[in-house]
Structure formats: C-alpha cells, structure tokens
C-alpha cells in the first residue's frame, strides 16, 4: 500500500466524563507530516488521542480518519498505529509474544508475524530481551516495546502519546529519527508531550492544548514568540549576588532583580531569556564570575499556559 495522505479530522469535538470536561469544541485537521500536541498534564491531550483512536466515543461532534468515523470502525486500524501513555502490558507474556499476538490481531500470517515482530524488536533494540517476560523489563524497555507495537505493522498514521517518556538518550534519538522518517515517507504522525523541547526536536507544527481546548496552533516560531513575550524568572546562585545584579540592572530586557537571602540566589525577571543567558555565560567566562547554579523556576509549560490564558 502506498502510504500517506491520510488526515485526521475533528469537528466540534467534545468529551465529558460525567460533569467533568475532558475536551471542548475542538475542530482541527491533522495532515500528513508531524504534528506536535503540546500541553501540561491534564490538558486533554490523552482524551483527544483516545477519541481519535476510537477508545472513547465523542460526547458531541465527530472525529474521522480518511473521512471514516473512528468509533466502532476496527478496519481503520489496519492503517493506524498507537502508542499509549499508560505503562500497561500483558505482564506474563514475553516481549515477542506480546508483539506477535498484537500482529496476529492485525491479520498477518504466521510468517509475516515472525518477520515483522523480529524487525520491530530489532528496531527498538529489544531483540536480546525478546524472550523474557515483560514483567522483568525496565521502564525504558517497556517504553520501547510500546513503540514497537505501534510501528510493527507500518501504519500510515502514527499516534504517539508521550512516546519519549522514560527513554535513554540513544533510544530517544532513534525514536525521533523514526518519526522524522515517517514524515519523509509522507505519513501522518501526531505526537503528544508536555515537554516543549521534545516537541521542538520533532516538528515545527504544534497544537497547544489547555483545559480541554485548543489554545493555539501553528508554527513553532509563533508559539516561541508567545513564550518569549512571557517574562521569565531566572535564579542564579552565586557568592556575589549584589555584584552580579549590578551588571544586569542596566539591561533593557531585565525587568526586575530580587534577592533571596536564605537561598543565596538572585532572581532576575527578563523578557529575553536567550540574551540573558548569553550575557551571563560571557560574564562567567570573561570575568570569572562565581556561578554555582542556574535554574528557571517558571521554565515549564504550565507557567507558559498560565501566561497565555492570562492568569
């Protein structure tokens, strides 16, 4: 089958769990290529992914893949691969049995099942552990096995819910390469994460989800601009806090400077974090500034979202 060209479409999609809102009025089209779904924990990413993989029935609106409804339409899953977020397995099977069983459900012959499971296990580097019980796998191995079951049938649409969680740097690189290869082949990939740099490493096209709604969608630069407009707090632990503060108070992008005597840190609020770090690095190198620790207390998605929704 020639891959690609499949689109996931949601139209006024909503989901309630009793009185609790899971997702509200989401209309979006996910085209071939990589789309990043970004949002803090509990934002509604997983609900959206469960709706587009037919695990949940929409309370309102529609969700289609290739113009076909997803709910109770198992045939669509010949072309869809899904890696769930939850760490769930048939613990008393081996990695190979788990993968072979699921490939069997996709309708492959015994020979194809063997061939595809061998290739998928090799891809995620689990060939040596393939005949061990999943119960004994480490977190990283379990994550890799989840990814292998999503790709073993070479789907046209790959839906990955927090796929890089628990992976070591090497495995992360491999998975990122796989996702990019899928894009090159014209397939559709939807990846969710609550970690911005993970999404940035994968795609330029992102959708921001917050409190069950799409907050913004578009190019990463647009989102970056929104984030950059957000004043960042940078905490610097140093032996000479006042000396350091004196070097920054004159900078136009530094909005405020505070001292935390108990922690021995200086808290800078800046509108341009990159320029701030560049100057700090230069000072440390040129003037031998004694910097023990640099942290960004609000450098997380939640604070960005709070800023974007005007909290």
């Amino acid at each position, binding site marked *: 089958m020639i891959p690609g060209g499949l689109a996931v479409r949601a139209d006024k999609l909503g989901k309630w769990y009793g009185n609790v809102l899971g997702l509200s009025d989401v209309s979006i089209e996910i085209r071939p290529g990589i789309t990043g779904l970004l949002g803090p924990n509990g934002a509604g990413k997983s609900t959206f992914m469960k709706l587009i993989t037919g695990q949940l029935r929409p309370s309102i609106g529609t969700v289609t893949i290739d113009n076909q409804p997803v709910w109770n339409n198992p045939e669509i899953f010949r072309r869809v691969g899904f890696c*769930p977020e939850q760490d769930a397995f048939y613990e008393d099977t081996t990695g190979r049995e788990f993968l072979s069983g*699921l490939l069997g*459900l996709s309708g492959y012959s015994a020979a194809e099942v063997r061939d595809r499971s061998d290739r998928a296990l090799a891809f995620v580097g689990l060939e040596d552990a393939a005949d061990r019980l999943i119960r004994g796998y480490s977190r990283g191995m379990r994550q890799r096995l989840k990814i292998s079951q999503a790709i073993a049938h070479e789907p046209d649409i790959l839906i990955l819910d927090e796929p890089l969680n628990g992976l070591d740097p090497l495995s992360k690189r491999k998975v990122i390469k796989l996702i990019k290869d899928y894009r090159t082949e014209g397939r559709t990939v939807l990846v969710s994460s609550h970690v911005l740099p993970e999404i940035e490493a994968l795609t330029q096209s992102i959708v921001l989800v917050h409190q069950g709604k799409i907050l913004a969608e578009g190019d990463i630069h647009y989102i970056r601009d929104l984030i950059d407009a957000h004043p960042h707090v940078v905490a610097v632990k140093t032996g000479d806090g006042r000396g350091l503060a004196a070097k920054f108070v004159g900078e136009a992008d530094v909005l405020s400077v505070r001292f935390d005597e108990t922690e021995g840190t200086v808290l800078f609020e800046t509108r341009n974090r990159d320029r701030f770090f560049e100057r700090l690095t230069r000072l440390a190198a040129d003037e031998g500034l004694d910097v023990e620790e640099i942290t960004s207390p609000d450098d997380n998605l939640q604070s960005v979202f709070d800023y974007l929704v005007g909290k």
Partner: protein
Amino acid sequence: MSMAPFLSVYRFSAKIVRRSKRTKVFIAVSVLPVILAVVLQINRLASPGRGLDGLAVFSNVVMGFCLQFLVLLLSLFFGTSITADEVDNKTLTYPATRPVSKTAFILGKYAASVSFLLVLVLTSTVVSFLILMADRLSYGAAWAFLGKSLAALGFGTICYTALFTLAGTFLKKSILFGLFFCFGWENVVQYFPGTTQKFTIMHYLKSLLPGMEAGVGGTEGTGLLKFLLFRQEPTPVVTAVITLVILTAVFAGLACWVFSRKEYLFDE
C-alpha cells in the same frame, strides 16, 4: 463475521490465560477432587467392606464439589476477568486499536477461557473417576454416569462463563455479583420446591445427571451429600440441553452487544 479475527484473539488470549497467576491458583484448586479421590480410595482399600462404593463417592464428588463449587468458581473468576482484567490493567487499548471487531474480541476471549476451563474441569473429573473406580472399570453404568457428569460439567462451564462474561462487561464489581449469584442464588434457590428451582442454571445441569432420585447403579444415593441429590421437578434432558444452549447464546450475545456499545474508562 470472518473467523480469522476470532481465531487470532483466541490464540493470543489462550496464551495469556495459560500464563496468568490466577490460572496457576485455579489449577491447584481443580486438583482438589483428585486429591480427595486418592484419599478416599486409600481409605476404602485400607478398610475393605467399610468404605463407600466408588461410584457413590464419585457422584458425590461431582455433585458436591465439581458442579456446585469448582465450575461456579472457575467460571466466575475467568468469565468476569475477560473484560475486567483488560480494563483494570489498562491493556484494553491494544486490542481496541487493532482491526478486530469487539464481537470477535469478546467471543475469542470467551472461547479461550472456556476451552481452558473445560480441559481443567473435565481432566480433573476423569482422573478422579479413574482413581475411585480403579477396581470396577468394567462396570458399564459407571461409564455412562461419567459421560453424563462430563456433559453437565461441560454445559455448566460454558453457560456460567457466558453469564459472568456478560456481568464483567457492564458491572464494575462483577465478582461480588457473581459470588452472590453462585452461592446466594444458585446454591439456594435450586432446592426450592415447585417451579422456582427452574430459575436457576443449576437445575438444568442437574437434570442432565442420571438417577437423581434413586442414586446410580444400585448405590441408592447413599453418599454423604445425599440431600443435594434431591430434585423435585426434573426437566427432561432434551429440554434442559436446549435451555442451556439458549441461555449461553443469550448471555454471550448480550456480552458482545454491551461491549460494542460501552466505552471503558481507565482509573487515572
């Protein structure tokens, strides 16, 4: 419905059933009739003339343990787990995102559980029979009783597992319901006089067993659990079989229907 998805679910589920920890526990439980048979047979051989007749003991083992306890317990735990395990362990995501209909999924898992339970229950019963009847294997009526016992146990396993599969699809505490049903309804109402007893599955299963009123092969129902053999209004065998088949089909059909329409949420 194509058979291929059903068979692939069956094969995968059979492997999971065989491997689970629960299975190991229930294999041990299903060996109990064999251990009981060995103890009773040793006792019988040690004091000839005083022990019970082998066939009478076997009929009591079948009635008192296998049919009214073992089959109920195994069907309850394996039937309810068909859906509940997938939801509780959050593994339902995997089959739910494969090109397999929900009907094929439920029926495939049901068939895998039932076939495993049949092997367990019937093997245990046959081995118990061979031990208890070791000195009377040429007795034809005993073999006929064995055949009918296996039929009752087989139908019991198939029908109860279908019922508990259905319970597992829509009840959150299906085990509690099952325990109440097995030991609060089936094991009580079957002794009610009149037609009330026909509201139990056990009534139809017992109707498949021979000589309920008068015992079997001259044993005259002298077993320890003779009171269990009391049957006020037996249903003809053909009617009992048809009823059990219909009940099984209805339970399994409803289980598929509920499972296809219900969405299952994992506890986060």
